[in-house]
């Protein structure tokens, strides 16, 4: 119950921040959508970083490391540090310059102008919405999975049907999702992009700080930093996977299992030298079979899992972070920047912020393999570790608030962005700017945001058991496939309207094809382990180049508008 009170206090604090940002709101649509281009370097860094790091970063990375090991960091985090910073520098600053000069608020406005095509906007709008919605689902599902274990036992008579038996009485995911949606909705509703930037900054600081605090407490509970390295599951001479330690809650310390507890066996491995190795601490692909015990019936079943990654998967994953170049919510954050110089801190500090958040999460996930049941759902690993190792309810409440902060700092920007593109690219674009007053434009955006929040909540309840990491990867893959569109628009004068349309169609069709093959959201690799995003990216690039070269070049006035270097 104490944990729940701490979380409730945090949510109230956020609402207060929403009221505060509402007082700074200037009442214009430009202020509501892009904060009147007034955001400085620190707020930009925090809002961009907070937006890109969602449940995927904290809950997803810990869960994936628990499933696959420390390769998770190189697979997603370190390459993101390089690719994201490169995109902020090469794409973000350039788009900001066009946005400021020509008065763009959304991506679609830029593409419509750059390719002299109205229809391109109508083609792109449903695709962007389709791809942002799974990203929103990740947040709501992640929040539900986090809160239920840490509030277990709080209301045993109210919530009698938990997702897992030990979580009886915990706040169910439907209620967490509802509360999170309402809190985010209220401060986005009131403060617009300025409110989102303030809330993001506050929440990013909270989740980075609380993440480090959680890390310190987990290390302490595992018997110190050096002892923690011995905790992950180990392979014996007989290719059996064992847990050498367990956490004794009564003594509040790690104790050795005598004999080691058997949790599974190795089926195959790319390495010959596996004896006494801890498979979560390397990246060699190793197929294993784990035991899973049903806590209700006591029945034991088995399931297979691959630890590590194949090298080809690791290499082709570099296409996934390209998605950042096409995130519509990030485009909106870029446009809030006061000047191009505001980007400097983001370019330098973003990789470091990723490191500060991801290294502890990936380590905790790997350590969890030595103390948690292998069958535990990956999104619940972080909160299960907190629950097991950090006993203090106030601290657990604060740490959980940190996780919620990471989740909500992405949700707000995504909700706002969908409201923005619907209002500006569909309603105002069709009806004409003079048809509505500024107040009416803000009201339309707010109404659409309410609709999209309701729809997302409903979908999240339907997909409540989806794997947060895999769902995120599908969402990122779709945006990566659209990356050739933005890159060509900015750097290739010969890119034409028909090339752009062909590129979008190729990206969407190839993505839908692989998404279908994955069973609509599961993990899916092509051939020797190639991620679908790589193939979708190539298909979209080829379509852009071939069709652009086969059609008439863009008019000289368009080239002059978007390639200012030529004019000087």
């Amino acid at each position, binding site marked *: 119950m104490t944990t729940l009170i701490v979380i409730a206090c945090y949510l109230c604090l956020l609402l207060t921040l929403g009221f505060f940002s509402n007082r700074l709101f200037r009442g214009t649509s430009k202020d509501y959508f892009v904060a009147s281009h007034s955001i400085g370097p620190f707020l930009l860094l925090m809002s961009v970083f907070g937006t890109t790091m969602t449940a995927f970063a904290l809950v997803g990375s810990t869960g994936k490391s628990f499933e696959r090991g*420390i*390769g998770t*960091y*190189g697979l997603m*985090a*370190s*390459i993101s*540090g*390089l690719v994201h*910073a*490169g995109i902020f*520098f090469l794409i973000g*600053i*350039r788009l*900001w*310059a*066009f946005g*400021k*000069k*020509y*008065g763009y608020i959304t991506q679609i406005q830029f593409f419509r102008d750059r390719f002299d095509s109205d229809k391109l906007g109508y083609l792109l709008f449903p695709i962007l919405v389709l791809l942002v919605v799974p990203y929103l689902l990740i947040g709501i599902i992640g929040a539900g999975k986090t809160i239920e274990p840490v509030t277990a036992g709080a209301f045993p008579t109210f919530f009698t049907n938990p997702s897992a038996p030990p979580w009886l009485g915990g706040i169910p995911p439907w209620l967490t999702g509802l509360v999170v949606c309402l809190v985010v909705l209220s401060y986005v509703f009131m403060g617009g992009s300025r409110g989102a930037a303030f809330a993001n900054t506050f929440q990013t600081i909270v989740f980075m700080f609380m993440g480090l605090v959680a890390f310190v407490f987990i290390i302490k509970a595992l018997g110190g*930093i*050096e002892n*923690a*390295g011995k905790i992950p599951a180990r392979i014996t001479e007989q290719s059996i996977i064992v847990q050498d330690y367990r956490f004794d809650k009564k003594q509040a310390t790690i104790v050795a299992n005598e004999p080691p507890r058997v949790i599974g066996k190795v089926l195959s491995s*790319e*390495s010959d*030298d596996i004896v006494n*190795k*801890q498979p979560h*601490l*390397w*990246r*060699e692909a190793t197929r294993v079979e784990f035991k899973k015990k049903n806590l209700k019936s006591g029945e034991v079943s088995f399931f297979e899992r691959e630890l590590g990654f194949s*090298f080809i998967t*690791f*290499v082709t994953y*570099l296409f996934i972070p390209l998605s950042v170049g096409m995130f519509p919510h990030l485009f909106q954050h870029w446009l809030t920047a006061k*000047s*191009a*110089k505001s980007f*400097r801190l983001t*370019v*330098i*500090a*973003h*990789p*470091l912020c*990723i*490191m500060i958040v991801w*290294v502890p999460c*990936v*380590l905790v996930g*790997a350590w969890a393999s030595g103390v948690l049941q292998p069958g535990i759902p990956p999104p619940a690993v972080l909160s299960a570790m907190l629950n097991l190792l950090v006993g203090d309810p106030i601290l657990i409440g604060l740490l959980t608030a940190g996780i919620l902060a990471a989740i909500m700092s992405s949700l707000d920007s995504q909700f706002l962005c969908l409201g923005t593109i619907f209002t500006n690219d569909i309603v105002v674009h069709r009806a004409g700017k003079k048809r509505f007053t500024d107040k009416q434009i803000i009201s339309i955006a707010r109404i659409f945001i309410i609709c999209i929040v309701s729809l997302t909540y409903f979908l999240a309840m339907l997909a409540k058991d989806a794997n947060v990491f895999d769902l995120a990867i599908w969402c990122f893959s779709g945006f990566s496939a659209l990356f050739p569109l933005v890159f060509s628009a900015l750097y290739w004068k010969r890119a034409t309207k028909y090339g752009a349309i062909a590129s979008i169609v190729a990206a969407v069709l190839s993505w839908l094809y692989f998404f279908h093959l994955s069973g609509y959201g599961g993990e899916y690799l092509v051939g020797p382990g190639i991620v679908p995003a790589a193939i979708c990216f190539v298909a979209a690039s080829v379509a852009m180049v071939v069709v652009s070269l086969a059609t008439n070049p863009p008019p000289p*006035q368009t080239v*002059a*508008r978007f390639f*200012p*270097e030529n004019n*000087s």
Partner: protein
Amino acid sequence: MGKRMVWFLFVLMFFLHQDFWWWDQSFLVLGFLPIGLAYHATFSIACAILGWLAIRFAWPAELEKFADSPDQSK
């Protein structure tokens, strides 16, 4: 150092990211960081340094001027 060197380092970083040379190693650095993780954490720091170099030597100053000038294209 100029723009070309920054671009060269950017491409080099993509190669350095594929650390197949420590793929099957799991020894701990500083007693707690598996080498595969320690290497990539260092890689993140290198990315930040590369970002600083890009700002120092390849900053698009002309875009700033362009954004602040009035729009006369339409």
